[in-house]
């Protein structure tokens, strides 16, 4: 049994609810404990960097300092945006003494020492390295045979820090897809931007980026896209109907979290994985409890 601290982030408490459900279920099935960081706050996201970078870094650092105070275990941040914001704050504080001074000053006001000892991890990396393929394979009871999956990494877990996987030739997601018994399709756009916040700010551009990703997944004849981030999942999923109308292309495809895919392969219940909360439910040829 391994224990981790858990930084859910705002999204997993909202539209990313199925991600939280499936993450907790999969970690439980693997005997991994996630303890939510007490009274965590927003990671700062990209918004703060555009307005006041120091404040954004203080927001992220407060969470890391809380983790240090809790017990200093690795922090699991499932949202790629949070993962990057926390990783970036940690790197900036280590690199720039003037940033560190400001963080120490701010957190000093609330008696929170920041030392920078806590590791920030993405669950993709935790599952592929801490747990490892051997252990994962043992838990798979329902291989997702004939299920073709487009692995979509998005940006923030690969760039600019490459702690999860190589920025140019990532493969951990493909590995997990194979372990689940499914088939990873060749998906050249796997690390291309999902549009991020542009799908709200400048929709004409943001939705074009979404269209490119959906279209190439359809071209690869994928049955589903698997994502590692609540924003990617949201962008790829919710605009499909609208894009079908505006582009006159068939862009309908289920978009699920990699934890949901693993959970299905572990034989976990659809509801426990939040599969029923998706806009499009992936169609598996192998139903729960064995072959059809």
């Amino acid at each position, binding site marked *: 049994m391994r224990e981790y601290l858990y930084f859910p982030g*705002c*999204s997993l*408490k*909202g*539209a*990313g*609810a*199925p991600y939280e459900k499936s993450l907790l279920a999969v970690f439980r099935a693997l005997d991994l404990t996630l303890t939510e960081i007490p*009274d*965590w*706050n*927003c990671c700062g*996201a*990209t*918004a*703060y*960097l*555009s*307005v*006041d*970078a*120091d*404040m954004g870094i*203080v*927001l992220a650092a*407060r969470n890391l300092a809380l983790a240090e105070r809790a017990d200093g275990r690795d922090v699991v941040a499932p949202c790629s945006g949070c993962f990057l914001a926390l990783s970036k704050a940690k790197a*900036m504080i280590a*690199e*720039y003494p003037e*940033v560190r001074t*400001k963080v120490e*000053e*701010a957190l*000093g*006001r*609330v008696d*929170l020492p920041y030392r920078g000892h806590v590791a920030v991890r993405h669950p993709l990396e935790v599952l592929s390295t801490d747990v490892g393929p051997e252990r994962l394979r043992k838990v798979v009871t329902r291989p997702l045979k004939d299920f073709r999956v487009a692995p979509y990494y998005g*940006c*923030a877990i690969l*760039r*600019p820090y490459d702690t999860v996987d190589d920025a140019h030739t990532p493969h951990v997601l493909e590995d997990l897809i194979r372990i689940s018994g499914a088939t990873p399709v060749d998906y050249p756009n796997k690390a*291309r*931007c999902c*549009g*991020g*916040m*542009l799908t*709200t*700010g*400048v*929709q004409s*551009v943001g939705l074009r*980026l979404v269209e490119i990703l959906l279209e190439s997944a359809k071209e690869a004849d994928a049955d589903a896209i698997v994502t590692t981030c609540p924003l990617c999942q949201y962008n790829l999923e*919710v*605009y499909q109907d*609208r894009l079908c109308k505006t582009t006159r292309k068939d862009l309908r495809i289920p978009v699920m979290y990699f934890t949901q895919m693993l959970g299905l392969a572990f034989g976990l219940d659809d509801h426990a994985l939040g599969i*029923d*909360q*998706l*806009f499009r439910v992936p169609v598996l040829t192998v139903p729960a409890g064995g072959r059809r």
Partner: protein
Amino acid sequence: MKLIKVVKYEESLDPKFAERVAAEPGGERIWDCIQCGTCSAICPVSLYMDLTPRRIVGMIRAGFRDEVLDAISPWICTSCYACTVECPEEIRITDIMYIVKRMAMRESGHHRFVVPAIEEAFIEMVRKNGRLTESRMGLRVAGKSGLRYALAMVPIAWKLMRRGRLRLLHAERMENPESLRVALAAIENHGSSPARVPARGSRPVVEA
């Protein structure tokens, strides 16, 4: 006949602009740029930009302060870090875009554009509750983006609600947002931001 000056004269450039950008964390390597254009090539949104990333970097170095701060480009940047990873000179171009955004927020008239307005609404909500409530943020965005946008979002919001992914009455907040406010207040008004900078068009005063 009215004559319009189309050529930028040396005297209307801001020779200190590049220094200011280079002084911010992440901006230091701006002088290493060889103008190869790899950033613009890899950028997934450069074709929608008025100034591509390469031009932004080149124009910062040449002192085109007003043009750079008025550009839409930094607000189109989705912060995907493709340019930063590919740059052969290891220039943190994404960070430079953030630096430009921060300067534009303070020194330019960018508040009319919807992206910075969304960012400010985000920050206001986090300052108050310590966390973001997506449903409320969605309403704010819809309010700022006009009726057509809002109407198009209705079926999506409905689907999300029916699936328990959007709770209208729920507000996501910290148990004790005050502790965050106290911490943030310590650095407010003297962050990396030069507090007050002259209005657009006038010659900027740069702190030594």
